[in-house]
Each structure stands twice: as C-alpha cells, then as structure tokens.
C-alpha cells in the first residue's frame, strides 16, 4: 500500500511541477526547462534531517504555508548562484548582488511557481489549497532546511515530495518540496480513487 501511495504522490508532483515550471518558463519568456522525474519518499525525522546534503551551501529558500481543504507546507530551494541567474533573466540586473529587488523578484518567482503547483492540484481534486505570503531567506542550506522542518512541525514521519529541475542552456537548478499534512493527503487520495491511502 505504501508503494501505491508514493506512486500517487509522484504523479501529483509531476503534474504540480509541470505547471510550476511552465509558469517559470513563461516569466522568462519561454526558455525551456527540464524536469528530473519527481520523487516521493516517506522519511523518518532523522532521515528528513539529513535530506539536505551540503549543509553549508548558501541557498535561497522560499517557504509557504498551505491552508484550505488541504493543509501542509511547501518549500522552494535553489543554490544562490542559480537564484541570481533567475534574477538576472527577470530583472536585467547582472550585478549578482542579493539586494532588496533581487529578493523581491525571488519571492515572486517562488510565489508564482508554488501557487501554480497548488493551482494544478486544486483543479484536479476540486480542493482548495491556498498559499500564504511566502517567507524568504538566503542562508546555509542546513539552517534553512531545519527551519522548514520546524515550521512544518515535522516531528516523526514526513511525506516528502520533491522535484528537481534545471534550465536548458543556463545553469539553474532547484528543488520544489511539498510536505502535505498526513490527514489531508488522505483526502486527495480518496478523491482521486486511491482508496483510504
């Protein structure tokens, strides 16, 4: 049963991230993006804690609380170099400086991508999944990931769905991570005919 649940989550991630990267692509006037096939895993706390490998790499983290019929949390993580490429493509600013406008652009990118992801899932399930105003931080990956786990109140087990993406011709990589609340995940499963989850 766990297998079926994870396959289902992978499918959700596929759909969600497809829309998210289409949205990003539109913002960047159609530059092609490629996805690495999403993965869905059920992790225990210690495994979740180790999920981020290079703890000291500086990354941009965008954190959103999801409310409505489905509750949970989402995070969008990208290395700061990739983030600054996106900033350059969007704003024309090639200084590489993480200034207020750069952070604002990144917050908006994260907002649009994550919301597009949720919009796609909502359309499929007819369930409301409303995003909060995004939180933004630029810091060591370990500290950001830890703050995401604490913010998402991940205590023992967590269902983690992630999709890596990268841009054709530009070195942009990122991770979109969805952490649905366990009970609400069951709602989606039932609605899409996967029984009790």
């Amino acid at each position: 049963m766990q297998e079926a649940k994870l396959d289902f989550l992978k499918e959700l991630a596929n759909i969600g991230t497809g829309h998210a990267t289409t949205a990003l692509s539109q913002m960047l006037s159609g530059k092609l993006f490629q996805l690495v096939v999403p993965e869905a895993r059920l992790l225990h706390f210690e495994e979740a804690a180790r999920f981020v490998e290079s703890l000291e790499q500086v990354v941009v983290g965008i954190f959103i609380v999801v409310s409505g019929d489905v509750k949970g949390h989402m995070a969008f993580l990208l290395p700061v170099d990739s983030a600054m490429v996106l900033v350059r493509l969007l704003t024309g600013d090639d200084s590489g400086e993480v200034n207020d406008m750069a952070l604002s652009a990144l917050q908006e990118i994260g907002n649009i991508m994550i919301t597009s992801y949720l919009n796609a899932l909502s359309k499929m399930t007819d369930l409301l999944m409303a995003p909060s105003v995004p939180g933004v931080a630029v810091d060591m990956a370990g500290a950001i990931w830890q703050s995401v786990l604490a913010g998402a109140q991940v205590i023992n087990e967590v269902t983690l769905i992630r999709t890596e993406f990268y841009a054709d011709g530009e070195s942009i990589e990122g991770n979109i991570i969805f952490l649905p609340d366990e009970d609400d995940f069951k709602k989606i499963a039932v609605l899409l005919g996967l029984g009790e989850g």
Partner: protein
Amino acid sequence: MSKTVLITDDTAFMRMTLRNVIEKNGYSVVGEAGDGEEAVALYKELQPDLVTMDITMPKMDGITAIKEIMKIDSDAKIIVCSAMGQKPMVIEALSAGAKDFLVKPFDAERVVESLRKFGS
C-alpha cells in the same frame, strides 16, 4: 489626460513589472500599495480610474480590500492580478466586485486588454 491606475502587490518586483507595462501603454500609475490596507487608504486619497489587486498579501488580503473599496465606490474598476487562480478564489473576487481576474504569470497584452476594456 490619461487614465490613472493604483497598483497593489506585496512584492516590489511585481509592482515594478506592472508599472512598466502600464506606463508603456499610456496609463499613469498614481500610486503603489503593498497590502490591502494601503490599497484602501490610497483609493480614498487618489480616486484612481483603475486598480490592480493582488490576493495573497499581509495585513489585509485582496478580497477584503476589494470589498472595502467597493463600499467606498460601487463603480470602482478593480482588476485582480494574482498567482492564486483556483476557482473558489476567482468566484469570490468577482462576487466581491472585481471586474476581471488575471492569473500570474500573465502577458503584458492581457493586462492592457483588461485595462482598456474596463477603463472607459
């Protein structure tokens, strides 16, 4: 005299992007609001011809702001520009009095089309 627009969005980047599109197409941006509360206050003060409104914002969200502005002026022309495009949200915004709902990311043409349609 060109039509006046009040832009509402919680990110400076989106306000800048919208301003560029709007001004390039012959409209005059008379104010920028970073949340719903500011939008309502600026509406009272500036009485713009048109308003663009985000939904997910701190302090006061877009739906509440739409309702408040409609109370002040039942003829207000509010165009929603939001990433949140789920059906219940669109229905709520339009029922509250918004004239149009543009889902981000949107083309510049789409924004202008909406401004032209409701700005007359």
